[in-house]
């Protein structure tokens, strides 16, 4: 006997700006859920590539603001007023869900204190050097860091590409804010400061498309780096009141600054000064340490071969990350130039 899927008191908001190529897969993955959302709202943010038509053909509700809202946060908040269910989910238009992703995430809201919940993120395509680097980055962070954060009750970020929220809490906060380039981090940290709980459910898996080319990667990293610095500056005092989170943010910020400087300046200069190319091993010195969580995560997904062949890309991406972070920190903290334009980089 084939069981028909049940539905959840949930609305999914899919913000979309020129996403005609990927949107259909996203909607189909929502319709294939073991527990379906009650409504799917696609926000066609004044696209010019027929994104709205793609969504309409698949039978979901399409909202189109009079003019471009300026950011993913703006598009999501635009749709929030239309939500009538107690739970709401934000899902990127380039992200597909595992068939049981909603079913796995829902129990996190059995506790009334839970305001947001997110899942495990795995790149959908793992082909180019940047996708491979990101694949390892995610495997490492979601298998180890984020699970530890969950045990301490403080996942660092409820991922913007796929997160579920309590609608009344989100409304009371005014929706997603566009005051920083990382609306997901801003919202998560604001929730903690209000004494709310955020959960990470590793069994709930989503698959976004990650940047394939350096051009798209650069736009994404620029946004992420500036967003991180902006959020640290914005929440610096409030964060101090949140146990564990304050420590996790402090070490993340320190690493982003110091390790970046180490990779980009200290190691090559020392290698030259001391005439010892062996020092360049410092770029990959933590291969064994990174391999442990990565292989644990990859083994659970039966992707050990893919993980091993992708490892070198991680170290390239990490150095590139370092460059973008240092540039963002310099621009935001020393030059006083804040990034305000949301550049879509997938």
């Amino acid at each position: 006997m084939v069981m028909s899927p049940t539905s959840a008191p949930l609305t999914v908001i899919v913000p979309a700006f020129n996403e005609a190529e990927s949107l259909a897969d996203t909607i189909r993955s929502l319709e294939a859920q073991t527990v379906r959302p009650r409504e799917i709202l696609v926000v066609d943010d004044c696209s010019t590539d027929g994104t709205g038509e793609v969504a309409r053909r698949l039978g979901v509700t399409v909202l189109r603001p009079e003019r471009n809202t300026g950011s993913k946060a703006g598009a999501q908040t635009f749709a929030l007023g239309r939500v009538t269910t107690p739970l709401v989910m934000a899902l990127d238009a380039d992200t597909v869900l595992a068939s049981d992703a909603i079913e796995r995430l829902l129990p996190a809201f059995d506790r009334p204190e839970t305001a947001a919940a997110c899942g495990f993120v795995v790149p959908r395509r793992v082909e180019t050097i940047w996708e491979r680097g990101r694949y390892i980055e995610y495997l490492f962070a979601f298998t180890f860091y984020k699970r530890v954060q969950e045990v301490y009750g403080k996942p660092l970020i409820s991922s913007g590409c796929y997160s579920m929220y309590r609608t009344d809490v989100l409304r009371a906060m005014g929706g997603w804010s566009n005051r920083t380039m990382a609306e997901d981090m801003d919202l998560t940290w604001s929730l903690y400061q209000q004494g709310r709980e955020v959960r990470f459910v590793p069994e709930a898996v989503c698959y976004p498309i990650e940047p394939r080319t350096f051009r798209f990667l650069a736009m994404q990293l620029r946004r992420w780096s500036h967003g991180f610095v902006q959020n640290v500056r914005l929440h610096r005092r409030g964060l101090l009141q949140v146990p564990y989170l304050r420590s996790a943010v402090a070490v993340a910020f320190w690493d982003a600054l110091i390790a970046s400087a180490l990779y980009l300046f200290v190691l090559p200069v020392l290698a030259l000064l001391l005439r010892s190319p062996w020092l360049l091993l410092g770029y990959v010195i933590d291969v064994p340490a990174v391999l442990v969580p990565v292989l644990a995560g990859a083994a659970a997904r039966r992707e050990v071969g893919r993980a091993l062949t992708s490892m070198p890309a991680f170290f390239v991406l990490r150095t590139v990350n370092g460059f973008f972070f240092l540039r963002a920190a310099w621009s935001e903290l020393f030059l006083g130039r804040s990034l305000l334009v949301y550049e879509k980089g997938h």
Partner: protein
Amino acid sequence: MIAGLPGTGVGGLFYVFTALGTPFRAWRARRKGRAGESALGAWALVLMAAGVMAAVWITGWGVGVLLGRPLTRALAAIGVARAVAAPPSLIRTVSLLLAVVTLVTILAAVEVARLVVHGRGSGRSTATVIAPPAAPVPRRDAA
């Protein structure tokens, strides 16, 4: 999104140390009705942390063997060190110690900052520091 640079420096060390406390934290969370990581899952995290520590230790030996001699030779060449032969374990011990001291210093600084801010009676968010743009700026599409 990912904050920081995963896998490097004191961040990695921070998660290794805090992972060691997960069985206790998971037990406490379950008692409070916050069903999160299972006892088995928490111990898996401890095992992972132990694996990372073992990997760091092995790397330390490897680095000591690979770098110890050429590094001290280079240092001797510029007059910083006199002896050419260095015990391989020296680099490992010094680098690990330095990382632990750095981590402890950062965590202590955060706690001091908290006490200072809390002492002033201002634990509120500074969320109004960054003003949003007056009007939405149309986003750029690279496609």
